[in-house]
């Protein structure tokens, strides 16, 4: 299915409302294989909802999502687009990994069991293979010495790295990150971003919702600025972050940079 001109992820005119609140107003974007797309925007602008539509955690009201050419969540029956069976949707989700702001590590399992659970219980690997693969993924995120630790014994940064390993264990075609460093203490952000940079360098296709503009600038293939359920501006990081055309983008970026400087320098944040 993989062909060089077809994007790995294609989102076309996605719309989603909660009651009267229109959260996504026809969002279209795409990501080529190996690209890292960074999505920025104020809280409530629909970034999480967009990600959740990509793996069908949320059922969009309109529009289509394709991953590696396959339509997510729906299929043609006759001439009607009908929601797929649970089994089918589950299979599709396996090729889309997701990393959450709050880690969502399974607290009753060790780090190794967290990573091995999905490959094993979806029948992708047998027990021995799953354990071996999990150990390998933990090594990839630099946690081979914490295999047997439970979530409560791990720092936030380590938990998030376990969560990344857990997503990687399903060998996904694309990884979605929803503000992966927003719940972390500032000194732990770096270790998670380092893992993500490595993944990007290794050719993983990633869609990253983040407030880490520095990361977006260094790693992003493109940056998308969203506001009020729509894409306001998108393009190469240098353009969107360096010389934004839209005023809302400019305001947002200067606000985030100001916050960043304040949290990086304690003398500034205590001064006001």
């Amino acid at each position: 299915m993989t062909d060089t001109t077809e994007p790995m992820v294609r989102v076309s005119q996605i719309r989603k409302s909660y009651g009267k609140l229109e959260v996504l107003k026809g969002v279209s974007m795409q990501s080529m294989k190996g690209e890292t797309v960074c999505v920025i925007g104020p809280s409530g602008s629909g970034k999480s909802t967009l990600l959740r539509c990509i793996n069908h955690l949320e059922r969009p009201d309109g529009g289509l999502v394709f991953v590696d050419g396959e339509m997510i969540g729906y299929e043609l029956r006759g001439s009607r687009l009908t929601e797929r069976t649970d089994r089918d949707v589950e299979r599709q989700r396996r090729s889309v990994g997701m990393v959450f702001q709050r880690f969502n590590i399974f607290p009753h399992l060790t780090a190794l069991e967290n990573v091995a659970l999905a490959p094993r219980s979806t029948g992708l690997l047998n027990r021995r293979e799953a354990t071996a693969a999990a150990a390998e993924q933990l090594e990839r995120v630099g946690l081979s010495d914490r295999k047997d630790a439970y979530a409560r014994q791990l720092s936030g940064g380590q938990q998030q790295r376990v969560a990344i390993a857990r997503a990687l264990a399903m060998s996904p075609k694309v990884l979605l990150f929803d503000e992966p460093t927003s719940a972390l203490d500032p000194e732990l952000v770096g270790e998670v971003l380092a893992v993500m940079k490595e993944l990007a360098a290794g050719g993983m296709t990633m869609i990253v919702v983040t407030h880490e503009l520095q990361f977006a600038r260094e790693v992003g293939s493109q940056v998308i600025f969203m506001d009020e359920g729509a894409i306001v501006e998108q393009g190469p990081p240098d353009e969107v972050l360096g010389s934004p055309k839209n005023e809302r983008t400019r305001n947002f970026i200067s606000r985030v940079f100001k916050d960043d400087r304040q949290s990086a320098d304690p003398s500034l944040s205590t001064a006001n």
Partner: protein
Amino acid sequence: MAGPSTAPPETKVDVPGLTELVDADVLAGRKLHKRPHPVRWLVGALIVAGLVWLVHSFAQGQIRWGDARGFVFNHDILTGLRRTIVITVLSSICGIALGTVFAVMRLSSNPVASSVAWLYVWIFRGTPELLQLLIWFNLALVFPVLSIPLVGSQRTIDVITPFMAALIGLSINAGAYIAENIRGAILAVESGQTEAATALGLSRRATLTKVVLPQAMPALIPSIGNQTIGLLKGSSLAATIAYTELLGQAQRIYFLNARVMELLFVVALWYLVATSVASVLQYYVERYYGRSERNQRTSAADRLISGAFSRLRGQTA
């Protein structure tokens, strides 16, 4: 332990003006006294006095303690005890099974399933347990013959024996409470957990059994333990529908020999023994399911039980 021994560092308390007022122990850093608690002592003494008086009056009352002692290991009483344990174990197993099924139904997205589960809980939690037992027991009055398609039919009196009526009634009643406990415990598991499992491509069933239920367990065990202890005692209601468990046997005996209080105390003793054993079992099950959060919170009672048990093991070892 080689090497020269070093003198302990100077620990003398040195506060100007205090030296003359307190004794040498204080200055050496020892002997700070607890606050006196005269009221606590007084209240404690009053309570103890009250208890002594209570025990004394029972000892003086018209109770033949010797007779009571004789009934503790009475054959019929032990038969009753065995029946109480059997009906408790069976109906808590059936109750947990029913509770799980109805909890999952209640949470399902199928409106029919969830309404039926709601109805089940509404009816069986909303009516007295004794009433339910009586209705099951008297089912023959409305359905003289029970017939199940493809299985056959039987006279209701033959099927719904006192034992069956008690088992059905107690299980269904317990199931209604347990369903609510399970539902609550499932809802208490953070939604992010379900989300993470779903995003990994786990089926709903795997999400429930591998991610949600294991996390609901620690919260569930105490309430299911309480249900089981409740069943242990609640099974005494079966005495009223002619199932002669522990209480029923005692009643049969005292109808003949009129040693009412003696037998009731014997029954009380056996219930206390049974509920205590159940509590200890519950403690171990709770500990098993608390593995991943070991050393977090242990109540004083938990520490007492575990302490007692480790001492016991220490003695036998």
